[in-house]
Structures are given as C-alpha cells and as structure tokens.
C-alpha cells in the first residue's frame, strides 16, 4: 500500500521540473538569436552609415580623377591604381612562395623536429600583428635593400603578412586530396614531383586559389604596415612599382577620416565604398575560379 502510493505520488525522477528546464533551453536559444541579431544589426548600421555618407560623393570624376587639396574636387585614381597594382604584386609574390612552402610541408617534409619548427613558426607568424611586419618592411625593403618607400616595398611587406594565411589554407587543401590520387600517380611511374605537379596540385587547386585570392582581398584592405613603411598620403601621379611615392585606398581613407570636416568624412566613406567593391569583386573571382577549377575534380 505505502509502496504503491510512493510510486504514484513521487514525481518521476528523470524529469524533475521538465517545464522549467525546457524554458531555460528556450531562453538560451533566444539569447543565441539575440547575439546574431546584434551582429546583423551592427553590419547593417555600418553599411548604411558608409553608404549614406559616401554615396553622394561617389562619381566617375571621383574614381577617375587626380587628387586635389580640396575635397570637393579630389579624385582617387592614383590610390585606386596603387591598390590594384599592390594586389597584383602581392599575388605574384605569394603564389609561388605560398604554394611552394605548402607543398613542401604537406607532401615532402618528413615528420621531424625541423618540420615541426617550420610549421609552428608559420602559425606563429600568422598571429604577429601586421604593424610589426611594417617595421620589418621598413628596415629590410625600404632601408637595407634601399628600395625606398615605393609600391614594391609595400607589396613585399603585405606579401609577408598574408603568406602564413596562404600557406595554412594551401596545406589544408593539399591534405584534403585523397591518398589514392597520389598512389595512382605513383602506380603509373610518376616521380614525386610529377605526382605533385600532375595529380595533387590540380586536385587542390580550387582550395589553394581561393585562399590566395581571399588573401589578396585582405591585402587590399590592409593599411597599418603601409603607414609604417611610409606610404604617402598625397600622390598626384600614377604609381610605379619601383619609383616614386605611392598611396592606396585604405591610406586615403585613414588620412581623410582623421579630419572632422564633413566633406572629408564624405570622401573617406566614398573611398571605403570603392574598397568594398574591390573586395567584393575579388570574392566573386574566388567563387568563379573555384567553380572552374573544380569542374573536372571528382572523388
């Protein structure tokens, strides 16, 4: 008698206060959604601010014009060309070195202390603040090699900034290639390099190229190392890689955004829009390249 009442009266042990526990879950899920909502809101407000301040200043003359001391007449052509040249040179430097380093670490290196040192070093370099690379670039490219504060010095410095990211992304892409690809190539009598060149690299190409293009996008928005190596803020001629001062879009934004006058805030925002468009184009390019390169890949 007592036993049965105990069994029927006592609440089931496995679901005490299930309502409250489920409510906690719902509240937590709500908190997650609120966090996302805050991020979405921040992004929308940011883009809205840039567009409303910058769009009235954006015109063909602004994009294709030469700079002027007066914000109403200024153009950004030298900075735009500078940014594009910079991205191309950064890509050209990063492409062979980044892929080479990744191929060595993923395909050639045996697991010994030297290899682990190289790997640890690359992941540490990925965490070094970009402004420190600027100091390195100033000492090595600008002074020691005597190149001066030219576009190439800036590009070489930025290449060093993004190389660790490119190498890490490329290693991931190479590791994702199935082992059977390698064994297939060896079975056909390929040497190690023929195997890498003909079998693994094509298979990893979509991932590697995406990594490089996205890293170039990162380089286009980067300003801190360039400020350190001495990028100019007012350049009235189109940049040449090894000669004369150069400027890029983020440097212009930095220079103008520091001035409180409304006109300068306007052209800063307009230049930001141009940067964002460039980055957007590079992201699209990454998608297209990825799609084209992965057409023939199936495993």
């Amino acid at each position, binding site marked *: 008698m007592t036993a049965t009442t105990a069994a029927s009266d006592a609440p089931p042990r496995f679901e005490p206060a299930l309502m409250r526990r489920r409510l906690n879950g719902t509240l937590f899920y709500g908190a997650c959604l609120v966090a996302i909502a805050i*991020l979405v809101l921040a992004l929308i407000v940011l883009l809205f601010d840039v567009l409303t301040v910058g769009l009235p200043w954006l015109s063909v003359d602004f994009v294709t014009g030469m700079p002027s001391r007066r914000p109403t007449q200024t153009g950004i052509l030298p900075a735009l060309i500078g940014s594009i040249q910079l991205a191309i040179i950064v890509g050209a430097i990063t492409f062979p070195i980044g892929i080479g380093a990744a191929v060595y670490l993923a395909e050639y290196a045996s697991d010994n202390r030297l290899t682990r040192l*190289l790997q640890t070093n690359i992941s540490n370099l990925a*965490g070094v603040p970009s402004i420190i690379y600027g100091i390195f670039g100033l000492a090595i490219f600008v002074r020691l090699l005597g190149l001066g504060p030219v576009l190439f010095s800036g590009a070489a410095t930025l290449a060093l900034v993004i190389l660790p990211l490119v190498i890490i992304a490329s290693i991931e892409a190479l590791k994702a290639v199935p082992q059977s690809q390698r064994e297939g190539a060896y079975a056909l009598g390929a040497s190690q390099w023929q195997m890498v060149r003909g079998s693994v690299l094509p298979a990893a190409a979509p991932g590697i190229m995406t990594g490089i293009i996205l890293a170039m996008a990162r380089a286009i928005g980067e300003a801190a190392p360039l*400020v350190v190596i001495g990028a100019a803020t007012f350049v009235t001629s189109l940049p040449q890689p090894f000669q004369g001062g150069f400027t890029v879009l983020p440097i212009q*934004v930095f220079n103008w955004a520091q001035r409180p006058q409304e006109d300068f805030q306007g052209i800063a925002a307009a230049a*930001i829009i141009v940067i964002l468009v460039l980055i957007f184009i590079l992201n699209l390019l990454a998608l297209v390249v990825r799609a084209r390169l992965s057409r023939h890949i199936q495993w």
Partner: protein
Amino acid sequence: MAVQQIQLTRRRPWSERVIEALLFVAAALGIVTTIGIVVILTVQTLQFFQIVNPIDFLTGTVWSASIQPYQFGVLALVSGTVLVATIAMIIATPLGLLSAILLSEYASNRVRNVVKPVLETIAGIPTIVLGFFAINFLSPEVLQPLFGVGLFSALAGGIVVGILITPLIASISEDAMRAVPRGLREGAYAMGATKFEVVRKVVLPAAVSGVMASIILAMSRAVGETMAVVLAVGTFPQFSFNPLESVQTMTAFIVQIVQGETSQGSVQFLSLFAVAMVLFVITFALNIVSAWFVRRYRTAY
C-alpha cells in the same frame, strides 16, 4: 631482358632534388622573417635602452614622447591597449560563443545561411572601415548621447575591435564544438537531458580547449589591432582604466610616430621599436598559449 631495364632502386634524378630544395627554401622563408623581426626589434630596443633606463620604461606610467619633459613609461600605453582589448573581449566573447553554439548545435540550414555570410562579411571588412565607423557614427551618434564621451574613447575602440574579432571566436569555437563526437551528445539525450543541458554540460566542457584557444587568439588580435583603434581611441596616452576616456594603445602610438616628422635617430623614433617589442612579446605569448589549447582539443578526440 626487359626486366633489367626497370631499376627499382634508381637514384632520384637531380631535378627532383633541386625542386625539393626550392620548396624547402619557400617553407624556410618564414624562419628568416621571424629571425629578421626579432633581430630588428632587439637591436633597436637595446639602442633605446642606452638612452632610457629599461626599468623606467617597463614600470613607468607616464608616456610623453612629444612634449618635454620626455617620459617613456610604457605602462601608459599597455594600460590603454589592455583596456581596449578587455572591452573588445567583453563584447566578442558572448557574441562569438553564442553564434558558435547556434551554428554548431541549433542552426537549421535557413539560419545557417544567414549567420555564416554575416560572420564572413564582418571578418572580411577592412579594419580601417571599422575605425571610420567608430568616429563617424558610433562615437558621435551613439556613445556621446548615451555616455557623454568625447569623440575619442577607449569604449568606441573596444566596441569596434569587439565586432572585428567576433567572427574569429565564432569560427574556431564552432570547429571545436563540431569536433565533439555525436556519441557524447546522444549519451546525454539518452539520460533525459534537454538540448540546452547537452550544450551546457556536455558540448561546452568537451570543447573547452578549442573555445579557450579561440578566445586567446582573439585577445591577441585585439592587442595587435591597429587601424580600427588608431582612429577611435585618440592620441592621449594615460594610465587609466576608465573606458570613457581617450587613451592611446601601443599600435596607435607606433602609427603616430611614423606619421609624424620624427627624425629617425631620435629617442622618440627608437621608442617605437621598444613599444613594438612589448607588443610582439605580448601577442607572441598569447599565440603560444592559444596553440597549446588547439593541440589539446585536436588530440582529445
């Protein structure tokens, strides 16, 4: 006869070895960079220490590089950096972790298709744009009316840096949570746990190494962040932990010196390297700790 032509122990041709050597050089370039950075910073910092006592530098709380009497107490810049990074972490840690949990544990494809692109877009925005946002909108339109701060404040810098590093926390933490085996979750469900309890008592503890790694890495990013901060916090180095005041971070000081007309042999210019050295050591230490946590969660399952 034909069999003899296939030599199984053939030596690798020289071209193969040259290629391997070239690839090795590419991989070793990073070592050269690291050594270069350390040597440059060390040599110049030692030169700076011939003029300024290192003890005064490391323990002083007044930084005045441009106005006499010159004082180089780096704690004034370190405190500014720590203040901005702390505000950033207070914002980014909950936002990043909640997004990671949502993506890893809750998200339907529809939610995922919104959240992922938002995080990737924020991660792709140049940091100078966030600096512009801070002085063009956040400070004058939001923080001034609410807190009565000036145009430059540690708070404005901390908020934009917080937005900036949230995607980093979110993506690494999400990876760590996804690496938690399904079986652990299912075991908890079988015991009658609700979804929230599974997340809180099973997934989070199991992924704690990865989560810690993401938080420390984000802290390192926040400490080294330059362009977003330099516009937002101002150029007023002071030993203060009041978020509503204008401060100067280590990175912002470096930018101020290289932008100005400081002559290259001067003590001000040399102080740049000493500050960069402090910055390098702090971020390096944070990266090492973060890497240690990553190794732990990679080997856990």
